[in-house]
């Protein structure tokens, strides 16, 4: 079959969704299909330019394609008679983030009109899709709540599980992945100031903006932590990333209310690392059980500091939780082969 994976592109930025699309393509080919990725440019700032981009996607004509697997808004608006959605997330600023005031939609009538247009286009696209899979229970719940559509949870597999073999803990908490205010790495630095003196912290990953770098650097300086924090703020190769992760004592990942488990968490669990997260971090809670596979704490420095101290000091406890994380992950039995079979069923 000729299967087109349709995804968004934020020009010159590369993230988890892009990586997922590439591996989906690679594994579709491995399963004997032809596959390409169509990446549609999308810019959501300012919000007033969203409706024309929705029309853009809707006006593209696909030919010579047997099936479409679409991942994100507005890419999934593309028209095709056999479209399967594997929804990573909707345009949250028109839904749940709008409700908590975290939206870029303008206030008043214009914002309401954009929100209505997004919702109407979403509903039409969901209606015309053959199957709807989602990447997490969180996404599933939202889709039901806001659009009234049922879906099946299909967790994305780790792309290169063989890299996450684990290793002896070297006494630091590792925070990998993109660096921005939603991922709240700054909380880790603040917590470090309150945790045991032996705890060290490594934050490594590409920052979204220079401000994100500045914020962390200023906190490190403010608390005088330069000998205990390593900021490696750039795009890391998979090898570099895996090396940091495999030698960590525990892995911290505390985004604000994220939709999915998150690769950082899945890869940490694969490597047998205990996880530290926050009560309001969303999807990752599917993998973090307090006391069993890691620590679930309040999103504030004091509770976080206790977990970080425990992870670096109480070695028996951190090893037990790390093993627990690995077992829980393996129990989920998530592989590319089974994922492809379900997507094409």
């Amino acid at each position, binding site marked *: 079959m000729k299967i087109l994976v349709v995804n968004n592109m934020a020009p010159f930025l590369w993230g988890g969704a892009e990586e997922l699309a590439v591996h989906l393509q690679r594994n579709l080919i491995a399963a004997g299909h032809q596959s390409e990725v169509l990446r549609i440019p999308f*810019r959501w700032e300012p919000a007033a330019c969203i409706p024309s981009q929705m029309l853009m996607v809707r*006006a593209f*004509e*696909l030919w*010579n394609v047997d099936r479409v697997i679409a991942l994100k808004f507005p890419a999934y608006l593309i028209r095709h008679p056999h479209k399967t959605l594997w929804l990573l997330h909707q345009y949250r600023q028109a839904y749940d983030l709008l409700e908590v005031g975290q939206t870029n939609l303008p206030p008043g009538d214009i914002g309401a009109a954009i929100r209505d247009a997004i919702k109407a286009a979403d509903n039409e696209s969901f209606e015309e899709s053959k199957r709807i899979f989602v990447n997490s229970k969180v996404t599933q719940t939202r889709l039901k709540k806001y659009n009234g559509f049922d879906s099946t949870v299909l967790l994305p597999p780790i792309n290169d599980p063989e890299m996450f073999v684990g290793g002896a803990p070297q006494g630091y908490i590792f925070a990998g992945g993109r660096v921005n205010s939603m991922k709240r790495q700054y909380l880790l630095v603040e917590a470090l100031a309150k945790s045991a003196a032996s705890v060290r912290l490594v934050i490594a990953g590409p920052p979204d903006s220079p401000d994100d770098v500045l914020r962390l650097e200023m906190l490190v300086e403010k608390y005088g932590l330069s000998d205990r924090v390593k900021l490696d703020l750039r795009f890391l190769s998979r090898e570099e990333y895996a090396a940091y992760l495999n030698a960590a004592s525990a892995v911290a990942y505390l985004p604000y209310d994220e939709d999915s488990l998150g690769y950082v968490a899945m890869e940490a669990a694969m490597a047998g690392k205990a996880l530290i997260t926050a009560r309001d971090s969303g999807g990752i809670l599917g993998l973090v059980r307090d006391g069993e596979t890691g620590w679930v704490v309040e999103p504030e420095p004091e509770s976080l500091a206790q977990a970080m101290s425990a992870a670096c000091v109480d070695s028996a406890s951190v090893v037990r939780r790390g093993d627990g994380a690995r077992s829980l992950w393996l129990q989920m039995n998530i592989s590319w082969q089974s994922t492809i079979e379900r997507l094409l069923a």
Partner: protein
Amino acid sequence: MKIALCSSFVPFVYGGARNIVEWLESTLLAEGHQVERIYLPHIDTPDQLLSQMAAYRWVDLEAADRVICFRPPAHFIPHPNKVLWFIHHVRAFYDLWDSPYRNFPDDRRNRTIRDALHEADTRAINEARAVFTNSAVVSQRLRQYNGIDSEVLYPPIFDAGRFHCQGFNDEVVYICRVEHHKRQHLLVEAMRHTQTPVRLRLCGSASGADYMEELHATVHRYGLESRVCIDNRWITEEQKVDYLANCLAAAYLPLDEDSYGYPSLEASHAGKPILTTTDSGGVLELVENGRNGLICDPLPEALGAALDRLYDDRHATERMGQAARDRLDELGINWARVLNRLLA
């Protein structure tokens, strides 16, 4: 520099239109630029033409410092630093309007769509800070249909250093997709008019089975099995390098193609003369008769005589092969020049 390369594509169809984009991408990356390659779908049916133009108009690439647009309707993407490397129009609405390749009626409605397309194209192309084309043929059409001047910027091939010459055997090779407009059939028929033991090798896959069957039938009909080899598949790059290194000459005789075609360039880098025909279009911008190849009438008899001449006069053949390399320098077909012009 942050450079966005934009082109249209049909999913799962690969060919020259992707090569020019992807080879430029690799070259720009090697020079340390940030590159984003953007292929968006497009089909050239009248009913969907205008809405698709609008879709491209809504593409937002403000994040890029420079946008380089290739295949239409990529030139509709708005950007203050838009440069075109224009490789062809939507030809059924331009030079192929009066040809069998227009597969919709010449009626009032379609003529209106055609006129709207011409006008919109002209406006969008005029927005660009520079307009380059891949051949004099395309530049001429831009002048004729859109009244726009452009600069020919010949597309080089990637990693040309792979190609080399090891010698000259008895075989003329035609390494190219096997399609009717590439006219492999003319060469097969030419073989029955040859007087020498010259051989022919066709390499390439066909999109449909009919033309390939026709070629095999011709070989069989004239008993050419021992001298014509049809390699009905997409050969590897290594095999291609090897065939070109050892062949007598390379053939490339499409019907009125826009550009000189990558097969001609590959042959030139391998130091082999090119056999082509008087109606092959852009190939004639590269090949000069008797200097770096032979240009003959698109008739089996004439092609047969040319094949014999390549076989008989080895000295001339080898000299033309050497001249084929020189011709590339003369036309400035290299990546340094391409980058210099596109980023100016």
